[in-house]
Protein backbone atom coordinates (compact mmCIF):
# COMPACT_ATOMS: atom_id res chain seq x y z
CA UNK A 1 0.00 0.00 0.00
CA UNK A 2 2.81 2.42 0.86
CA UNK A 3 4.49 2.32 -2.56
CA UNK A 4 1.16 2.41 -4.35
CA UNK A 5 0.08 5.54 -2.46
CA UNK A 6 3.46 7.13 -3.11
CA UNK A 7 3.10 6.44 -6.83
CA UNK A 8 -0.21 8.30 -6.93
CA UNK A 9 0.98 11.09 -4.65
CA UNK A 10 4.33 11.64 -6.36
CA UNK A 11 2.89 11.53 -9.89
CA UNK A 12 0.47 14.34 -9.08
CA UNK A 13 2.89 16.29 -6.88
CA UNK A 14 5.71 16.33 -9.45
CA UNK A 15 3.51 17.09 -12.46
CA UNK A 16 1.80 19.79 -10.39
CA UNK A 17 5.18 21.33 -9.63
CA UNK A 18 6.18 21.25 -13.30
CA UNK A 19 2.99 23.03 -14.31
CA UNK A 20 3.52 25.54 -11.53
CA UNK A 21 6.83 26.44 -13.16
CA UNK A 22 4.80 27.99 -15.98
CA UNK A 23 3.33 30.56 -13.59
CA UNK A 24 4.10 33.96 -15.08
CA UNK A 25 5.63 32.41 -18.21
CA UNK A 26 2.58 31.12 -20.11
CA UNK A 27 2.30 32.00 -23.79
CA UNK A 28 -0.93 33.89 -23.02
CA UNK A 29 -2.37 35.16 -19.75
CA UNK A 30 -5.34 32.81 -20.20
CA UNK A 31 -3.11 29.77 -20.78
CA UNK A 32 -0.93 30.77 -17.85
CA UNK A 33 -3.95 30.69 -15.57
CA UNK A 34 -5.19 27.43 -17.05
CA UNK A 35 -1.88 25.71 -16.34
CA UNK A 36 -1.63 27.01 -12.80
CA UNK A 37 -5.22 25.85 -12.22
CA UNK A 38 -4.18 22.39 -13.36
CA UNK A 39 -1.15 22.60 -11.08
CA UNK A 40 -3.27 23.45 -8.05
CA UNK A 41 -5.67 20.59 -8.81
CA UNK A 42 -2.80 18.14 -8.99
CA UNK A 43 -1.04 19.35 -5.87
CA UNK A 44 -4.38 19.16 -4.07
CA UNK A 45 -4.80 15.56 -5.20
CA UNK A 46 -1.30 14.66 -4.03
CA UNK A 47 -2.10 16.06 -0.58
CA UNK A 48 -5.01 13.63 -0.23
CA UNK A 49 -2.70 10.70 -0.90
CA UNK A 50 0.13 11.99 1.31
CA UNK A 51 -2.27 12.63 4.18
CA UNK A 52 -3.70 9.14 3.88
CA UNK A 53 -0.24 7.59 3.82
CA UNK A 54 0.88 9.63 6.84
CA UNK A 55 -2.14 8.35 8.77
CA UNK A 56 -1.49 4.76 7.76
CA UNK A 57 2.15 5.03 8.80
CA UNK A 58 1.21 6.33 12.22
CA UNK A 59 4.74 7.56 12.84
CA UNK A 60 3.82 11.18 13.36
CA UNK A 61 5.01 12.19 9.91
CA UNK A 62 2.89 14.68 7.99
CA UNK A 63 2.10 15.31 4.34
CA UNK A 64 4.84 17.96 4.35
CA UNK A 65 7.47 15.50 5.59
CA UNK A 66 6.53 13.17 2.77
CA UNK A 67 6.62 15.83 0.06
CA UNK A 68 9.57 17.89 1.22
CA UNK A 69 11.91 15.62 3.13
CA UNK A 70 12.37 12.62 0.89
CA UNK A 71 15.23 12.21 -1.59
CA UNK A 72 14.85 11.44 -5.27
CA UNK A 73 15.44 7.71 -4.79
CA UNK A 74 12.40 7.52 -2.52
CA UNK A 75 10.07 9.09 -5.10
CA UNK A 76 7.84 6.63 -6.96
CA UNK A 77 6.52 8.88 -9.76
CA UNK A 78 6.84 7.74 -13.35
CA UNK A 79 9.58 9.36 -15.43
CA UNK A 80 7.14 11.15 -17.73
CA UNK A 81 5.93 13.67 -15.16
CA UNK A 82 9.40 14.83 -14.13
CA UNK A 83 10.46 15.67 -17.70
CA UNK A 84 11.16 19.40 -18.17
CA UNK A 85 8.44 21.66 -19.55
CA UNK A 86 10.30 22.44 -22.77
CA UNK A 87 8.20 24.59 -25.08
CA UNK A 88 4.41 24.79 -24.77
CA UNK A 89 3.96 21.88 -27.21
CA UNK A 90 6.20 19.66 -25.08
CA UNK A 91 4.16 20.51 -21.98
CA UNK A 92 0.88 19.85 -23.79
CA UNK A 93 2.09 16.50 -25.13
CA UNK A 94 3.40 15.46 -21.71
CA UNK A 95 0.12 16.41 -20.07
CA UNK A 96 -1.95 14.66 -22.69
CA UNK A 97 0.04 11.43 -22.37
CA UNK A 98 -0.41 11.60 -18.61
CA UNK A 99 -4.07 12.72 -18.63
CA UNK A 100 -5.16 10.10 -21.17
CA UNK A 101 -3.78 7.49 -18.75
CA UNK A 102 -4.71 9.23 -15.47
CA UNK A 103 -8.37 9.62 -16.41
CA UNK A 104 -8.95 5.90 -17.03
CA UNK A 105 -6.75 4.96 -14.09
CA UNK A 106 -8.92 7.04 -11.75
CA UNK A 107 -12.11 5.65 -13.27
CA UNK A 108 -10.88 2.19 -12.36
CA UNK A 109 -9.63 3.32 -8.95
CA UNK A 110 -13.17 4.45 -8.09
CA UNK A 111 -13.88 0.71 -7.75
CA UNK A 112 -11.08 0.18 -5.26
CA UNK A 113 -12.05 -1.93 -2.26
CA UNK A 114 -10.30 0.68 -0.13
CA UNK A 115 -13.01 3.21 0.58
CA UNK A 116 -10.67 6.12 1.18
CA UNK A 117 -8.84 5.54 -2.11
CA UNK A 118 -12.13 5.19 -3.99
CA UNK A 119 -13.32 8.48 -2.51
CA UNK A 120 -10.10 10.32 -3.44
CA UNK A 121 -10.35 8.87 -6.96
CA UNK A 122 -13.96 10.00 -7.36
CA UNK A 123 -13.08 13.53 -6.25
CA UNK A 124 -9.98 13.71 -8.46
CA UNK A 125 -11.81 12.33 -11.47
CA UNK A 126 -13.95 15.46 -11.75
CA UNK A 127 -10.83 17.59 -12.03
CA UNK A 128 -9.00 15.20 -14.32
CA UNK A 129 -11.96 15.02 -16.69
CA UNK A 130 -11.28 18.68 -17.37
CA UNK A 131 -7.49 18.15 -17.53
CA UNK A 132 -7.95 15.55 -20.26
CA UNK A 133 -10.29 17.82 -22.15
CA UNK A 134 -7.86 20.73 -21.88
CA UNK A 135 -4.82 18.83 -23.10
CA UNK A 136 -6.81 17.02 -25.83
CA UNK A 137 -8.09 20.30 -27.22
CA UNK A 138 -4.59 21.75 -27.30
CA UNK A 139 -3.10 18.68 -28.97
CA UNK A 140 -5.74 19.01 -31.69
CA UNK A 141 -5.19 22.73 -32.12
CA UNK A 142 -1.41 22.53 -32.25
CA UNK A 143 -1.43 19.45 -34.48
CA UNK A 144 -4.04 20.81 -36.85
CA UNK A 145 -2.77 24.37 -36.56
CA UNK A 146 0.10 26.00 -38.38
CA UNK A 147 3.06 24.25 -39.95
CA UNK A 148 5.24 25.25 -37.02
CA UNK A 149 2.79 24.18 -34.31
CA UNK A 150 2.30 20.84 -36.08
CA UNK A 151 6.05 20.26 -36.23
CA UNK A 152 6.54 21.19 -32.58
CA UNK A 153 3.80 18.98 -31.17
CA UNK A 154 4.87 16.05 -33.36
CA UNK A 155 8.46 16.50 -32.13
CA UNK A 156 7.16 16.59 -28.57
CA UNK A 157 5.32 13.28 -28.94
CA UNK A 158 8.33 11.70 -30.65
CA UNK A 159 10.56 12.84 -27.81
CA UNK A 160 8.26 11.79 -24.96
CA UNK A 161 7.03 8.52 -26.42
CA UNK A 162 9.76 6.52 -24.72
CA UNK A 163 8.31 7.52 -21.32
CA UNK A 164 4.82 6.30 -22.15
CA UNK A 165 5.51 2.60 -21.66
CA UNK A 166 6.07 3.00 -17.95
CA UNK A 167 2.52 4.26 -17.41
CA UNK A 168 1.06 0.98 -18.59
CA UNK A 169 3.69 -1.40 -17.22
CA UNK A 170 2.94 -2.38 -13.63
CA UNK A 171 5.66 -2.32 -10.98
CA UNK A 172 5.54 -5.32 -8.60
CA UNK A 173 3.71 -3.26 -5.97
CA UNK A 174 1.02 -2.35 -8.53
CA UNK A 175 0.44 -5.97 -9.44
CA UNK A 176 0.11 -6.68 -5.73
CA UNK A 177 -2.29 -3.75 -5.32
CA UNK A 178 -4.45 -4.92 -8.21
CA UNK A 179 -4.71 -8.49 -6.97
CA UNK A 180 -5.48 -7.29 -3.43
CA UNK A 181 -8.37 -5.29 -4.88
CA UNK A 182 -7.35 -1.78 -3.84
CA UNK A 183 -5.27 -1.06 -6.95
CA UNK A 184 -5.87 -0.95 -10.69
CA UNK A 185 -5.20 -3.62 -13.28
CA UNK A 186 -3.23 -1.64 -15.87
CA UNK A 187 -3.99 -4.18 -18.59
CA UNK A 188 -7.70 -3.43 -18.24
CA UNK A 189 -7.28 0.29 -18.91
CA UNK A 190 -4.76 -0.07 -21.73
CA UNK A 191 -7.35 -0.40 -24.55
CA UNK A 192 -9.24 2.65 -23.24
CA UNK A 193 -6.19 4.89 -23.14
CA UNK A 194 -5.06 3.58 -26.56
CA UNK A 195 -8.44 4.45 -28.09
CA UNK A 196 -8.39 7.95 -26.64
CA UNK A 197 -4.87 8.50 -27.88
CA UNK A 198 -5.67 7.24 -31.38
CA UNK A 199 -8.79 9.41 -31.58
CA UNK A 200 -7.05 12.63 -30.53
CA UNK A 201 -3.92 12.04 -32.64
CA UNK A 202 -6.17 11.42 -35.64
CA UNK A 203 -8.11 14.63 -35.09
CA UNK A 204 -4.82 16.46 -34.65
CA UNK A 205 -3.46 15.00 -37.92
CA UNK A 206 -0.50 13.64 -35.96
CA UNK A 207 1.44 10.45 -36.50
CA UNK A 208 1.54 7.93 -33.66
CA UNK A 209 5.22 7.35 -32.90
CA UNK A 210 6.56 3.80 -33.18
CA UNK A 211 6.56 1.75 -29.98
CA UNK A 212 10.28 1.17 -29.52
CA UNK A 213 12.36 0.68 -26.42
CA UNK A 214 10.66 2.20 -23.42
CA UNK A 215 12.27 3.93 -20.45
CA UNK A 216 11.43 2.65 -17.00
CA UNK A 217 12.62 2.92 -13.43
CA UNK A 218 10.76 5.88 -11.95
CA UNK A 219 8.31 3.70 -10.07
CA UNK A 220 11.17 1.95 -8.30
CA UNK A 221 13.13 5.11 -7.55
CA UNK A 222 15.56 5.18 -10.49
CA UNK A 223 14.87 8.61 -11.90
CA UNK A 224 16.20 10.80 -14.69
CA UNK A 225 18.61 13.56 -13.68
CA UNK A 226 15.78 16.08 -13.93
CA UNK A 227 14.07 15.02 -10.72
CA UNK A 228 17.04 16.00 -8.55
CA UNK A 229 16.96 19.57 -9.83
CA UNK A 230 13.21 19.73 -9.47
CA UNK A 231 13.36 18.56 -5.85
CA UNK A 232 16.22 20.94 -5.07
CA UNK A 233 13.90 23.79 -5.93
CA UNK A 234 10.69 22.31 -4.57
CA UNK A 235 12.21 21.30 -1.22
CA UNK A 236 14.59 24.22 -0.76
CA UNK A 237 12.61 26.20 1.81
CA UNK A 238 11.84 23.23 4.02
CA UNK A 239 15.43 21.99 3.87
CA UNK A 240 16.98 25.41 4.50
CA UNK A 241 14.56 26.38 7.27
CA UNK A 242 13.45 23.07 8.85
CA UNK A 243 9.98 23.03 10.36
CA UNK A 244 9.17 26.52 9.16
CA UNK A 245 5.46 27.13 8.68
CA UNK A 246 3.37 29.81 7.05
Amino acid at each position, binding site marked *: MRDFLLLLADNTQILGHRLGEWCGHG*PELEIDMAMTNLALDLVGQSRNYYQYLAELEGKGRTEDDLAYLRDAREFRNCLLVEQPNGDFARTVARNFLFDSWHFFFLQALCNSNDERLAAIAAKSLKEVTYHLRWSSEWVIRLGDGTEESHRRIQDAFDHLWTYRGELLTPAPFETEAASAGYGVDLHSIKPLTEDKLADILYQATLRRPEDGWMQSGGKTGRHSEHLGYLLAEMQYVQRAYPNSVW
Partner: protein
Amino acid sequence: MANHSEFPLWEVFIRSHGGLNHKHAGSLHAADAQMALEHARDVYTRRMEGVSIWVVPSAAITASDPADTDPFFEPAKDKIYRHPTFYDIPEGLKHM
Protein backbone atom coordinates in the same frame (compact mmCIF):
# COMPACT_ATOMS: atom_id res chain seq x y z
CA MET B 1 3.34 37.77 -23.11
CA ALA B 2 2.90 36.97 -26.74
CA ASN B 3 1.61 39.25 -29.41
CA HIS B 4 -2.16 39.06 -29.22
CA SER B 5 -2.74 40.02 -32.81
CA GLU B 6 -3.43 36.44 -33.89
CA PHE B 7 -5.92 35.55 -31.16
CA PRO B 8 -9.29 37.28 -31.45
CA LEU B 9 -10.97 38.88 -28.46
CA TRP B 10 -14.07 37.37 -26.83
CA GLU B 11 -16.58 38.79 -24.38
CA VAL B 12 -17.53 36.53 -21.49
CA PHE B 13 -20.96 36.34 -19.86
CA ILE B 14 -21.51 34.33 -16.68
CA ARG B 15 -24.72 33.23 -15.00
CA SER B 16 -24.13 32.91 -11.29
CA HIS B 17 -25.65 30.44 -8.86
CA GLY B 18 -29.28 31.40 -8.58
CA GLY B 19 -28.79 34.23 -11.04
CA LEU B 20 -31.45 34.58 -13.69
CA ASN B 21 -29.42 36.11 -16.47
CA HIS B 22 -25.91 36.06 -17.80
CA LYS B 23 -23.87 39.11 -16.86
CA HIS B 24 -20.84 40.49 -18.58
CA ALA B 25 -17.77 39.32 -16.68
CA GLY B 26 -14.94 40.55 -18.89
CA SER B 27 -13.06 39.63 -22.00
CA LEU B 28 -10.22 37.37 -23.06
CA HIS B 29 -8.16 36.19 -26.03
CA ALA B 30 -8.66 32.75 -27.55
CA ALA B 31 -8.09 30.99 -30.84
CA ASP B 32 -11.69 29.85 -31.28
CA ALA B 33 -15.04 29.59 -29.51
CA GLN B 34 -14.31 26.30 -27.75
CA MET B 35 -11.01 27.57 -26.39
CA ALA B 36 -12.70 30.80 -25.36
CA LEU B 37 -15.16 28.79 -23.26
CA GLU B 38 -12.34 26.88 -21.59
CA HIS B 39 -10.32 30.02 -20.96
CA ALA B 40 -13.40 31.66 -19.51
CA ARG B 41 -13.85 28.71 -17.18
CA ASP B 42 -10.24 29.04 -16.03
CA VAL B 43 -10.11 32.81 -15.75
CA TYR B 44 -13.60 33.77 -14.55
CA THR B 45 -15.09 30.83 -12.63
CA ARG B 46 -12.21 29.80 -10.39
CA ARG B 47 -14.06 30.90 -7.27
CA MET B 48 -17.35 29.19 -8.10
CA GLU B 49 -18.76 32.30 -9.72
CA GLY B 50 -20.90 30.57 -12.26
CA VAL B 51 -23.07 27.74 -13.51
CA SER B 52 -23.21 28.77 -17.16
CA ILE B 53 -20.91 30.62 -19.55
CA TRP B 54 -21.53 32.39 -22.85
CA VAL B 55 -18.74 33.66 -25.04
CA VAL B 56 -19.30 36.07 -27.90
CA PRO B 57 -16.75 37.37 -30.41
CA SER B 58 -16.09 40.97 -29.40
CA ALA B 59 -16.19 41.87 -33.09
CA ALA B 60 -19.85 40.77 -33.17
CA ILE B 61 -20.85 43.45 -30.68
CA THR B 62 -22.07 46.78 -31.99
CA ALA B 63 -21.56 49.40 -29.32
CA SER B 64 -23.02 52.86 -28.95
CA ASP B 65 -20.61 55.69 -29.55
CA PRO B 66 -19.69 57.71 -26.44
CA ALA B 67 -20.05 60.81 -28.63
CA ASP B 68 -23.72 59.92 -29.05
CA THR B 69 -24.38 60.01 -25.31
CA ASP B 70 -26.47 63.17 -25.45
CA PRO B 71 -28.76 62.33 -28.36
CA PHE B 72 -29.07 58.75 -27.15
CA PHE B 73 -29.69 59.13 -23.44
CA GLU B 74 -30.34 62.78 -22.60
CA PRO B 75 -33.95 62.87 -23.93
CA ALA B 76 -35.06 60.26 -21.38
CA LYS B 77 -33.97 62.37 -18.44
CA ASP B 78 -36.99 64.67 -18.22
CA LYS B 79 -39.56 61.96 -18.90
CA ILE B 80 -39.91 60.70 -15.39
CA TYR B 81 -43.51 59.70 -16.13
CA ARG B 82 -42.03 56.66 -17.84
CA HIS B 83 -41.19 55.28 -14.41
CA PRO B 84 -44.15 53.44 -12.92
CA THR B 85 -43.95 55.43 -9.68
CA PHE B 86 -47.23 57.31 -9.91
CA TYR B 87 -49.53 54.54 -8.81
CA ASP B 88 -50.96 54.13 -5.33
CA ILE B 89 -49.98 50.73 -4.03
CA PRO B 90 -52.74 49.14 -1.94
CA GLU B 91 -51.74 48.58 1.67
CA GLY B 92 -50.94 45.00 2.48
CA LEU B 93 -49.54 44.29 -0.94
CA LYS B 94 -46.15 42.73 -0.50
CA HIS B 95 -43.22 42.05 -2.79
CA MET B 96 -43.52 45.16 -4.90
